């Protein structure tokens, strides 16, 4: 408990708290703007957090993560365009409420539900993570390799419409990761005697290119398209006591559902919010009103998608494997700032973990405060012209790519991967699997190398540990489920 007090003192320090505040506020704006997601927001933060203390960076990233998931509901409710994929279910009842002139009520409920979902999931994260990390301390290279294999199966889950295209994208990421120095032998693979290629492609510019610059190219298609505008006056933000009494019965179970789904790698906020919406409808006394402006149809998905935030952090922090696209980018971000998630982080840098726990909790209260106070500003945020927003982001992307190594070559890498990412995304190859390949590939190879060195080259060692076999088993199940899901979706 005293460690959490230390974490609280750290986060509330006047030199640290503003970064959490900026993270949450920036996250809300990024989430609200269609075209920008939490992943892009985290990538845009990277050049700034690189110069901060790891714990401060981590709380800023957490603020961005939670804020962006909540921010997605704003455009979903006001203009029927989900700011992030997690907010897609919120459109179903949020927009009909806005059309009736009750946007204030919908936004108020979304804010309260998001904060409660976030608080419940943070509490779960605080209680579950240390236990899981304690268990993971038993892991050796064999178990870690199996774990990385499991992490890579997330590629299948985040493969959007086509499993084959997702896998192609993921294996391309693994191929990109194999360029440069081999850690065990020091041999520069696929470097073509180009000095810059000898260390491989730097991760930050690759992330910036694949997620942020490719998005800027995609946004060129919206140049002459006007976003819908919400013109009515926003009023009556706070829900009545009767409303809250009714909605809390939906919010609490949806928050737990979201947390549970968040913990399972390969799921994410979009699945959680639709599941919570369906459950809320199924248990409602008035299911016909769903889709026509029922407040429970806003509360359930918002509690669930913010519930996934703390849940998704559990496998990331304790095992070092990402649960979804945003946490994959978060993992990349942590590696860039020199923080390697996993059980050793709990043992060696507990102060970072405790600051993160407290920062995550305070982020939920900031969402509540900022959300309720700035409801009337939201329609103005959505008016930011594309012609101003994306040129600024483009400039920031280049500066971010440059700033890490002070290298023009890194800027070129970012541009190159922006173009590659654009063509791939345009033709149905999701960028997320490629990122997973780039991030997890080297980690998997490193653990495999360690396992083989310790066993004097005996490959059988990979299949001797029951924990490793368990991870291979669930990897097979994960891939099988993805294949079945693709099959069902075709039907």
């Amino acid at each position, binding site marked *: 408990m005293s460690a959490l007090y230390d974490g609280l003192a750290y986060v509330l320090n006047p030199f640290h708290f503003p970064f959490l505040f900026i993270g949450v506020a920036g996250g809300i704006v990024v989430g609200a703007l269609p075209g920008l997601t939490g992943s892009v927001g985290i990538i845009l933060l990277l050049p700034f957090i690189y110069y901060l203390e790891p714990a401060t960076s981590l709380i800023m990233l957490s603020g961005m993560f939670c804020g962006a998931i909540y921010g997605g509901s704003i455009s979903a409710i006001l203009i029927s365009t989900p700011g992030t994929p997690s907010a897609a279910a919120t459109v179903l009842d949020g927009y009909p409420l806005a059309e009736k002139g009750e946007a204030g009520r919908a936004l108020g409920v979304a804010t309260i539900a998001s904060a409660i979902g976030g608080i419940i999931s943070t509490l779960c994260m605080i209680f579950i993570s240390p236990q899981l990390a304690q268990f993971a301390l038993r892991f050796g290279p064999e178990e870690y390799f199996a774990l990385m294999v499991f992490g890579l199966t997330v590629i299948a889950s985040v493969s959007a419409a086509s499993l084959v295209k997702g896998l192609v994208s993921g294996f391309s990421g693994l191929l990109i990761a194999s360029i440069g120095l081999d850690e065990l032998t020091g041999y520069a693979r696929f470097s073509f005697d180009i000095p810059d290629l000898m260390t491989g492609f730097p991760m930050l510019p690759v992330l910036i290119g694949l997620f942020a610059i490719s998005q800027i190219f995609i946004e060129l298609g919206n140049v002459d398209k006007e976003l819908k505008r919400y013109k009515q006056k926003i009023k009556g933000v706070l829900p009545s006591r009767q409303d809250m009494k009714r909605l809390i019965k939906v919010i609490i179970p949806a928050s737990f559902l979201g947390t549970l789904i968040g913990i399972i790698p390969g799921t994410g906020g979009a699945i959680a919010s639709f599941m919570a919406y369906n459950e809320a409808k199924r248990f409602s006394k008035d299911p016909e009103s769903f889709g026509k402006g029922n407040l429970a149809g806003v509360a359930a998905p918002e509690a669930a998608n913010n519930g996934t935030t703390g849940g998704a952090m559990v496998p990331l922090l304790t095992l070092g494997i990402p649960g979804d696209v945003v946490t994959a980018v978060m993992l990349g971000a942590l590696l860039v700032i020199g923080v390697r998630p996993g059980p050793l982080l709990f043992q060696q840098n507990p102060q970072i973990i405790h600051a993160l726990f407290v920062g995550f909790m305070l982020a939920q209260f900031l969402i509540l405060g900022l959300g309720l106070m700035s409801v009337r500003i939201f329609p103005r945020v959505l008016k930011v012209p594309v012609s101003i927003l994306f040129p600024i982001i483009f400039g920031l992307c280049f500066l971010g790519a440059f700033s890490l190594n002070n290298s023009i070559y890194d*800027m070129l890498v970012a541009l190159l991967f922006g173009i590659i990412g654009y063509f791939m995304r345009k033709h149905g190859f999701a960028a997320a699997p490629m990122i997973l390949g780039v991030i997890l590939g080297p980690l998997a190879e490193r653990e495999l190398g360690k396992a083989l060195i310790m066993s004097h080259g005996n490959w059988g060692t990979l299949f001797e540990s029951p924990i490793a076999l368990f991870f291979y088993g669930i990897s097979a199940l994960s891939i099988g489920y993805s294949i079945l899901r693709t099959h069902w979706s075709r039907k």
Partner: protein
Amino acid sequence: MGVTEIVFGSIFLSLSVFFFALTFQFPEVTIALSPTVFPRFVTVSLAFLSLVLLAQGILKRLHGGGEKRRDKVDRPYAIRFVLLATMGFVYTRILESTGYILATPLFIAGTMLVFNEKKWHRIVLVPILTTALLYAVFRMIFRVPLPRFPLW
């Protein structure tokens, strides 16, 4: 129908064959993990997946034989894309010789024009203010050695 799968399948197949062939130039190490193992596993898997993609594309074409659906190239969009990519490339090339303070406002202003911004006061003010802000944060606070004009 299926053109995307055929084109991308062919590109990835060629890339995986090319990179697989290159692994034969790597030194073989008998202790622990050879530097060839991981890239060979990845390139073989990628080649297999590319073949599946290619087969999917061919099947789509065969089944949709009579159908002549061709996506029209959106010319203004394509021009904007090429312009933006070229401007990005030129920006990275001139940055060292002109310096951050000179090159960045021009780059942002150019990008705004590509995004069809018509209000001239925005085209002047936004790039200057953005560059000033980014310069202040990165150069003055974070001490990032941003490229400077050689005569300054």
